[in-house]
Each structure stands twice: as structure tokens, then as C-alpha cells.
């Protein structure tokens, strides 16, 4: 579907803004919302550009830059941090050869941090796209990454 076709699925009501932004990002293989998509969204909803941009930049789930096919979000909230999330992050950076916020050269993974994922009972945790992974350690991370790399 083209950007316009995706947007036209939604009624031109302002409360559809978040739904539209999700749909646009999900439909983009590079996992982000393009400038053209923001422009068309503002036009469709009859609102100003900044109203769209402000919302898109407010939520960390949205990106305005190209990202990997898979977004890894490591929980950086207190409980995970107590259980050495910082080591998990370092490990991921090492494995993926990127810094937090960057995308791997092959365009497979983007490494990000997240607020609490609500998995404190099995911390430390991370999400890859919509899937949650708990009780992380070196072995578990390698295993998970392997399953994605195929």
C-alpha cells in the first residue's frame, strides 16, 4: 500500500493520529515514518505539520530515521538496572557492533533503551519488536539473536 492508501483507511479525525502513525511505521520495512508520510498525515487530518511532528517525536516508539528490521529495546528502569542491565546493553553493543541508538550495518537490528517493560519479576528484560525476552544473560542473548539471524 502507498502512504496515501494507508492514511485513507482512517477517517480524517484528529484522534486517529496515533493509529495512522503506527500504521505508517509498521508498513515501512525500515521501521520509521518518512517526511512525506508526516506531510500526508497532516494534510489528511487537516492539522498543522507541527501537531503531527510533535506527537511523532514525543513517543519513543516512533522513529523519523530509518531503523533496522528488528528494534531491540532493553529495559533501563531501576529493577533491570539493579540486575545489571548495563552489562546486557554492553553485550548487545558488542554482539551487534553498534552503539545504543544505532542500526547494524546489515540493517537487521536497531538497539534502543526502554522505560520499564513491566517484567520486573524476571528482569533483566528486553523486547524485539513485539516480543518480550526475560531473564537475560550472555547465553540467552546469543541464542535469541541467532534465532533472528536465522
Amino acid at each position, binding site marked *: 500500500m502507498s502512504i496515501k492508501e494507508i492514511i485513507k483507511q482512517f477517517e480524517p479525525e484528529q484522534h486517529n493520529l496515533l493509529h495512522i502513525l503506527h500504521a505508517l511505521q509498521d508498513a515501512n520495512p525500515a521501521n520509521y515514518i518518512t*517526511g512525506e508520510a*508526516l*506531510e500526508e498525515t497532516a494534510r489528511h487530518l*487537516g*492539522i*498543522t*505539520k*507541527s*501537531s503531527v*511532528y*510533535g506527537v511523532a*517525536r*514525543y513517543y519513543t516508539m516512533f522513529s523519523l530515521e530509518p531503523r533496522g528490521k528488528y528494534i531491540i529495546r532493553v529495559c533501563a528502569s531501576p529493577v533491570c538496572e539493579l540486575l545489571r542491565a548495563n552489562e546486557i546493553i554492553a553485550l548487545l553493543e558488542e554482539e551487534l557492533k553498534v552503539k545504543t541508538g544505532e542500526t547494524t550495518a546489515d540493517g537487521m537490528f536497531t538497539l534502543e533503551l526502554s522505560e520499564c517493560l513491566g517484567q520486573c519479576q524476571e528482569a533483566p528484560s528486553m523486547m524485539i519488536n513485539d516480543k518480550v525476552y526475560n531473564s537475560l544473560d550472555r547465553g540467552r542473548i546469543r541464542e535469541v539473536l541467532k534465532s533472528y539471524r536465522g
Partner: protein
Amino acid sequence: MKQITITIDNQKINATEGANLLQVAKDHDIAIPHLCYHKKLSPTGACRLCIVKIEGQRGMVASCAVHVSDGMKVTAFDEELEEARKYLLDYLLSEHNEEYDGTYHDEFRELIYKYGLNNKENRRFPSIWKELGYPADETSPVLAYDAAKCIRCFRCIKGCDEVQGKNVLSFTNRGILSYIIGGFDKWGESECDGCGECIQLCPTGAIVEKPHRESINIENGIKKVRSTCPYCGVGCQLELWVQDGKVVRSNGVEGVSPNDGRLCVKGRFGYDYVSHPDRLTTPLIKKDGKFAEASWDEALDLVARKFGEIKEKYGRKSLAGYASAKTTNEDNYLFMKLVRLVFGNNNVDYCTRLCHASTVTAMLRSLGDGAGSNSIEDYETSDCMLVTGNNMIETHPVTATFVKYAAQRHDAKIIIIDPKWTPLVKDAHIWLQPRLGSDVALLNGMIRVIVKEDLIDREFIEKRVEDGMEAYEALKALVEKYTPEYTEEITGVPAELMQEAARIYAKAERPLIATGMGYSQQVTGTHNVFCLINMMLITGQIGREGAGLNPPRGQNNVQGVSDVGASPFTYPGYISVEDEENRRKVAKVWGVDPDELDGEKGLSTVEIMQAAYDGGIRGMYIMGENPMLTDPNLNHTEEAIKKLEFLVVQDIFHTETTPYADVILPATAFAESEGTYVNSDRRVLRVRKAVDPPGESRQDWEIVAEIARRMGKPLGNYRHESDIWDEIAKTAPIFAGISYDRLEQHGIQWPCPDKGHPGTATLFEERFNTPNGLGKLHPVDYAEQSERASEEYPLILNTGRILYQYHSSTMSRRNKALTDFANDAYVLVHPTDASKFGIADRQKVKIISRRGEIENISVNVSEEVLPGELFMPFHYSEAPVNRLTRDELDPYSKIAPFKLSAVRIEA
């Protein structure tokens, strides 16, 4: 509203129940510190500086978020509160770049000094703003934003949204890293139209004006002069900042009608023309086809001698004058006096004839007054606004802010009738898009709906309309044939939409009609407005606050010039030139024999040109008008002007008209003049001199008076503009109670019959101003336009204005800020026509009508126009669209049909 008593720091204060506590304190000079609060905006409660203690409530509360109630006991200042404020300021300061360049009023900085935080030893937080990497945005042509100076008070965002109704600004990111954005983080590519409301509201200098930023230093002596905007007829009150003899800034004056601090991009950034090097600075006399500098004596003597000779040779009817909607009442009054007394005829007119003459004519005949019946601020509380042929967001941007407020904040319904899309459509409930020239049919269709559904106000018709129900029956009979189907067939407007619009208007509590050039500039201009008035009278929607008919005037003083009698048909105060008793009265004021005053109507604007062409008019005096760009059928106008034996043009710049002059006289711009303008809601407003005029240029009235004196008929002994005004007040009963001393703080709306009268906000509350006090219905039938699309000229061309340019753009195009926004002519073509005629977007085309042709016009393919119709702005001299328009006049008002010319496009 219940009056209550509260105490603040033991001081007893009377207030209205529910009022904002911080505002109540401010109104009583209790200076509770604050940054995010502004009385024009909804409270934000972000800065927390306005904290107070209220007896019975826990802790400290933000006073901007408190509604006062009876007996409330408030502590505004104690040690703890002051310590908390200091802490808050200190905290804000740590994220703040405190460099100050002296170009703006910095409220934050004042508080820093007040709390001693300018001394770094008094601070407890380190400065961290540099590490936060705040961005700056310099992409706008008129303003710059620096996030490091921003305290996120949101005044800018709220001002743009709540005051201006634009909502262009938002913020991005979160927490300490959040900052203000326009568009996709690029102000210059956003929808921002440069009104600068955000700049005026910013308390920290995070948003600043670009123009003159290098030179302004407010700590180095800035003179501030209050005056009235020289552009459209809203009459915005300005505070001009003068430094080194030059206007360097223009702010809106807060708390004063009509604008309450608001401005548009022209009012805020359109003043640079005043000090432009192109200004005329010395009289010029044409010798052997070239202009040579001359002394005032030389020039004035020549003018007086030539006008005298022409009068002698061809008789007193052979001279004529164009007065000016740009200059003051005082200038125009003396100009009118010169034509009547010295030329000896009534051949004086001005651009109103090309503007709202038809509206005024219809209103005078039906209601007895030709001016807007309500106040501009009434739009804010209206529940229905019928906007006909009026692109008000672009032509009257500040009036439009009130209209948008009503629609956005309390759901008032805007009904737009316009063949072309306008930005107000975004806020409209209904947009009716009739074919050009079909308005009479559309309105008769709406009236029929009102008749059939019995939405009339019988009592109003019986009491306030001439011949009551009998007149109504005649209207009813006439509209009978305008069935929804028939109306749709003529206008192209879907019947249901038309019906719904009629119902909303008829049922509304406070409906206002705002009618513009789209209705007036037609051969049927007067008929269009008769129809509006018919609909208004049978529904009783006039004669009370918030209900009536209002033509927003296009130029700063177009209202006043008619008011003071620069008209071929009326003396000051709209009294007919044929009224002998009034002539005697005026002759007495002027100290002349009444027989010297011509009792026969003079020629109107376009008639003057036609008479020049035919040889009836031989000499002409044009003050501040540019007919060679703004008159219809320019090729004909050019021939007429060339036939004149003697032409004097008085202006501030060379224009498209000055090359045809024999003598050019340099006059003053608004910021160099003293006097008054009258705005669209009949408000007499002061204009004050802020800077000296360049070179030898003189104020218009002084030049006029000198010419009269040298022609042997001095106009009077005037030491100051107020002397002229006092004479105006003696000749025009509508101004009788107004004098300069009453205009110091705010304007006064006419009629103001005596010194004790407060002025009149709403017209026609008890009676109409007709001889019998009754309104008059004028049933009129739809007639097909004489100019229609044909095989040879298959398209209909509409003309109009845009936000960033003004009239013939003599002034507006000499401001970089405005030309940075828009400086290119274009023609709007519907996509259907573009493909039909094989024309691409941005292609250059030639446009040809029966009268002439213009070429090299850039095409803008757009759905803003209907198929078969085109639109072009008339501002640009390189695209003089009036070479295409007609001078076939509306028989009642003599207005020309700028809105409808059959044309063809050639690639």
C-alpha cells in the same frame, strides 16, 4: 456577575466571582511574579512563580490557576514564598542561556535581577544549558528561535492557537530536552504566516524578530509612538519603536480595541517602506518628457496656474480629484474642500468606488448607513457568521482571529459563500461554492427556504420594515421561482447545503454577515447586497449586539474618506450634495457664499476616467492613488490619462501612475503624519507622527492647502491637524462629539453626536437611519451576466488579494519581510482546465480578454478554483490583471466588475 471581596496581603479587593486570582492581583498593582501567564491566554501553570498561599488550602498554589471566591484570604508575599520563587528562578536559570543582546523586553531577566540571581554567588544550581545541546531555528524569514533561551512557558504555542487560531506551533521531545517547533522542526517550512504573535508574547527572547536585530538596543533610547496600522481597515493599534529617526519595530498595543495586541505580518513587519530609499523627496516637474527636481514654490505655483487656466478655459466642471483611502481624514477633508470650493464642482472620489461602493449603496438605500453595523470584537461571541466573497484570513487577518475564535472555541458556525477556496474554509461549517456571478440566485434560493419553512421574524418585519408584511409578500412572490432545484441549476451549489445554510443563519441568536469584494465587485454588486439585506431583514438579524451586516474595509482609511465627504454624491457625514440646507450650513462653517458650492452630483472614479477620455475632464489631481494598476480596463484608463492636459500626482513613491503626471508632489507616509483614520467598525483612531519625513516631503493636507491658497481660495487657518478635525466635527453630525483629546487612549465609534456620548458600538438598535426610520426590502431577480464564457474566451477570471501584498503593492513590496514570503504573480487554474488546455503547473502563459492581454504569468494548478474559473492576485505591476478587467459598471454604485472577466489562456 457577582461582585465579591477577597484580601491579598491584608488588602481588601473587590473582584468578580470566578475571576483569575493572578489577574485580579495584577489589576490592583500587586506584582506577583509570573512568566507563563498572559491575560490573553488560558492559564498554563508551568512556571510556578505566581505561587501564593490561600487560607484553608494546603501549601502553595499557582495563583494563575485559581478562581477567586468570596472571602478568599491570600498571601502573595512572605519570606517562604519569595524563597520558593527564587529557587524556581534559579532552577530555570541553570538550563538557560542568559546572554542578552538588548533587542527585546526580557521579563525573565528582570526577575533574575529582582531576585539577585544576576550575582552568580547567589545561585545554588550550576549552569548546564551548554551540555544539553539545544537547537536554534533561523529558517523563518522574520523570526529566530533559540531553545537555549526558552523556558517552555508555552505562551507562543497558546498565542498561535488561542489568539491567532493558527496552531502552527507545537513542542517536541520530552522533559528538559523539549523545545518549541514550527512545522517539521523548520519554522520556515511551516504554515507560519509571520504574524509574530509568538514574538510579542515571548517573555525571554527565545523568539525574536529578525529585522533590525543588529541595530536595536532598547537600553540606548527607543522612542515608542502609538499609531494606527497603514494597511487594511481593521485599524490595529501599533506601538512603533523609533531609533535614530527610523521605525525599527512595530508591536501590537495590548488591551485596546480593535486588535488587543494582535497584528498580522503586514502590521508587524511592513513598516520598512517608510524609510525606503525609493521615497520621493522633492517635487518633480516634467520637462521635455523627463522629470526634473523643482522647489515647492515652483511646483505649487505651476499646479495652481495650470488648474486655474483649465478652469478658466473649459469651465469649473473640467477638473477632478482622486482622494486617497491611505491618507488621513484631515488630508481628505481638505482635499474634498479644495475640489468643492476651489475647483468648484463635486468631481471627487476615490478607490471606495472600486471596493465597497455597491455594499455602501445597498446599505444606504435599505438601512440608511453604509458602514458596518457591529464591532469587530462581536465576531468573537457570534454563533453564526455568514462570510460572503470575503477572504478575511488574508485580507483582514486580525478580524479573522475573532471569527476563528468563535468557531474553534465555542462552536460558532461559519458559512462561507465563495467560488474560490479560502483558508477560512478549514474552520467553516458549510462552504457554498457558487459559480462566479450567480450570488443573487443563491441568496434568493436561501430566502425562499426561510419563507417556506417560516423562519421569518414577523414582529421585526411589521415593526421595522417599510410597508411591513406587504413588502415581505412582494419579496416572497419574487423568490417563489428560486426552488432548491432551480437555484442549484444556476449556482451549482448542492440544494441541501444551501438549505442548511439558510436554516442556520435564520435560526442563529447572534449572526453576523461579513461581506467582501467577491460580492461587491460585480456588475450586480448592489443587487448582491440587497439580497443579503433582504434575508437579514425578514429574519430580524440586525439591530442588536452581535447581529448585523459588516463590510470589512480594505484600506486603512477607506471608511473615513467617505465619512468626511470625499465623495461625488455626499458631503461630510453622508449628507447629499443636493441637500441645499446642508450646503448652506457647510458654507457657513467654511465662511463662503453657499452659491459657490455646486449642488449637482459629481463624477465617480471610473466616470472621471471616462470623462477624461471624452474630453470633459481636462485636469486632474490624484492624491495617493494608483489608478494605472488598480482601475479596471487599464488600457482604456491609460488612454484617458494620456488625454489629460494636466495631471498632478501626490504620493510617497513613483507608481505606475506617476509617469503620466506633469507634476509629482512628495507626501508623507503614515509614520510621518498626524491625524485620524476611521476603521471598519466606524472607530475614529489617532495616527501619530513617529519620524520626520524624508527630504522635503510634506503632509498631504499642507500641500492641498497650499495649492488652494495659490489658486486664490485659502481653505482656512489650520495650525494643527486637530483644527481640521474640529471643523470636520462641525460639518459631519456623526463626528460632532469627537475631538482629539477624547482619542488619546482609545478610538470612538461614530455616530457620536455630542461630547458626552460614548460612541456607538452597534447601529440600528432602535431605528434605521432612513428618513422614516424603517429598513427597506429590495426584491431583485437574478440576471445573467453580460460577460459570459464563450468559445473564444472559455474561462472566467476572478481577481483578488493575498496576505503578504497590499493593493498596488507600492508599500508592501518595499519590505523584505513581506517579499520574502510572497513576491510572484500567478494564476490559479483548476486541474481539469489545465489538462483540457494542455497547461502544466508552473508553466508561463498568456491570458487574453476582450480588453487586453498579459503574458509571462506562472500557472499554479490548484483545486482552490472551480473548473472553468481562474484566479489572479492584482498586486503585481508586472502582471497587471486589470488590463483584462471590464469597466462596465454596476448601475447603482458605479463599481466595476473586477471579479468576472471572460478570458482565454495561451501557452
